[in-house]
């Protein structure tokens, strides 16, 4: 191996942010367990991440010491719970550089967040006084892409059905990149919203959004970014991205299940009609009708997942302390290592970018003609946990002519030794099925 000195004054190799992976792993109790007699090798973080003790402790502590309902009690416990809940909102706002705390709406997950926006469109379309930016009808268009998760396809298909609008999409190139060549024909004056995945959960592709954003602004449409796979893994700045909405989910970023986020520009959230009705989202209620609270409360009907929100705040603290740029760099190195290692496996075909540029640490592949279920089963017998199937992105599988893929995905606690275990496991798969 040759080495080369980087000239003085240039960024040096050691300048990149780093953290101690072994120390981080010690924070995650589950990483100590065995699976089928082997040390756990968890390569399914794109599906859900593990939770560090710091988050688990906050979750337990909330119920043990501060449990009460939020936003409705004058008593001490109610005040503590409300402060913790709203404190978590502030942490999340800072984490994504939201201009205002009130732009962070807590949801159940990304799916619910996207559905809130989609239903705000149809509700606005039903009202004569609906904001024109949210009114949809025949002739209007919604634009998504072929690399979306089902959660960013189906809500828009249903919205198109309800309103008569047309759904269109960006294709995907053979390399697994977004095909922007038809951008100007696809995003036009007829487009009301472009809803696009930031990082693909199956191909690993991180989409460069600036050209699309510029076009969206030019035609006066809105832009939603599905950041379910990006917010956990790289620094996110909603101002810098110039999006109108972003959505993400807590359980993929060291937080609990049952809590997600819809971020929207304040003036857009304020223009959106409510979607779910109930307690907490109102201003006044009479038997003749109701008026509604300002965002974010307008979109948080009913008792929210309080402890989960507080624990997500703890997860954000945890990630921030390690540093999102350091996590991003760690995963970039892992991805480069994994792409090289997987290239040594005979008959292995990667779906998505094969270079560690413009992609994250989620790698889908086929191993010869061995079905992914069988690949996953043999790997599981060796303690290696990968996801197999269509990954809720069936159009991507169709695009690449396969019914399913095997997917390995990484996070801050993943090591190169775990990637070695995957590669060794794939050898075993080949032996069983050749």
């Amino acid at each position: 191996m040759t080495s080369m000195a980087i000239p003085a004054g240039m960024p040096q190799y050691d300048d990149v942010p780093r953290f101690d992976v072994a120390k981080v792993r010690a924070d995650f109790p589950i990483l100590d367990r065995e699976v089928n007699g082997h040390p756990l090798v968890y390569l399914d973080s794109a599906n859900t991440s593990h939770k560090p003790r710091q988050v688990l402790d906050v979750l337990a502590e909330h119920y043990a010491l501060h449990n009460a309902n939020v936003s409705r009690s004058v008593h001490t416990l109610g005040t503590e719970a409300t402060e913790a809940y709203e404190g978590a909102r502030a942490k999340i706002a800072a984490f994504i550089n939201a201009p205002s705390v009130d732009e962070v709406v807590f949801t159940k997950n990304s799916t619910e967040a996207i559905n809130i926006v989609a239903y705000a469109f149809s509700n606005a379309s039903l009202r004569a006084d609906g904001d024109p930016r949210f009114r949809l009808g025949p002739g209007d268009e919604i634009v998504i892409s072929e690399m979306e998760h089902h959660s960013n396809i189906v809500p828009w298909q249903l919205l198109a059905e309800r309103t008569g609008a047309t759904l269109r999409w960006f294709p995907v190139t053979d390399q697994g990149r977004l095909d922007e060549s038809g951008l100007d024909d696809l995003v036009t004056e007829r487009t009301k919203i472009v809803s696009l995945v930031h990082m693909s959960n199956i191909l690993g592709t991180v989409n460069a959004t600036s050209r699309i954003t510029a076009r969206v602004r030019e035609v006066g449409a809105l832009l939603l970014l599905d950041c379910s796979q990006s917010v956990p893994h790289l620094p996110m700045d909603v101002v810098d991205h110039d999006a109108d909405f972003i959505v993400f989910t807590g359980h993929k970023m060291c937080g609990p299940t049952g809590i997600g986020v819809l971020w929207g520009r304040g003036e857009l959230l304020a223009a959106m009609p409510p979607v779910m009705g109930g307690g907490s989202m109102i201003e006044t209620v009479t038997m003749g009708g109701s008026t509604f609270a300002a965002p974010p409360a307008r979109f948080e009907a009913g008792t929210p997942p309080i402890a989960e929100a507080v624990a997500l705040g703890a997860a954000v603290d945890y990630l921030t302390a390690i540093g999102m740029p350091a996590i991003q760099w760690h995963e970039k190195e892992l991805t480069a290592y994994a792409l090289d290692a997987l290239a040594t496996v005979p008959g292995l075909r990667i779906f998505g970018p094969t270079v560690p540029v413009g992609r994250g640490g989620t790698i889908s592949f086929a191993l010869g003609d061995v079905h992914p279920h069988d690949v996953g089963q043999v790997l599981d017998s060796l303690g290696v946990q990968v996801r197999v199937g269509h990954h809720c992105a069936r159009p991507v599988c169709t695009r690449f002519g396969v019914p399913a893929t095997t997917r390995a995905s990484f996070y801050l606690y993943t090591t190169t030794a775990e990637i070695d275990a995957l590669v060794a496991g794939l050898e075993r798969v080949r032996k069983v099925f050749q």
Partner: protein
Amino acid sequence: MQLESLYQEIILDHYKHPHGRGLRDAADPAARVGEAHHVNPTCGDEITVRVATDGTVFTDISYDGMGCSISQASASILHELLRGRAASDAAVVHEAFVQLMSGRGQVTPDEDVLGDGVAFAGVARYPARVKCALLSWMAFKDAAARAGVGVSPEVKA
């Protein structure tokens, strides 16, 4: 986990060398034909099963599909076990197989009834794979019903 209990030689054999694969037209133009297409939505596996019957006997059972070793081997074994059988016999085998797969590994299969199907006893211990094993059997049941022949009581999932 004992991988060998799942991937029995018999299963891998049927997977690598499937019996009776490919959809066929009925030899007898007067035969009643039924077809069903089933999908496992969690993994995208698909199978189409076609039966031809004279009303009493399944004169042919043909199939095509794509999927994992378990689902494809299961279809091959289904073909072996039920083709040429009277509907009443087929119902007994079908019920035995469904019972075996629903038994969470607690059911001891009868080789006289299930033949190579006994190899699936190990699969029953893997809840995530039971659906794979049952895919073609459920499609067969629907196809038979469409041909006007009932083969099985309701499945207790």
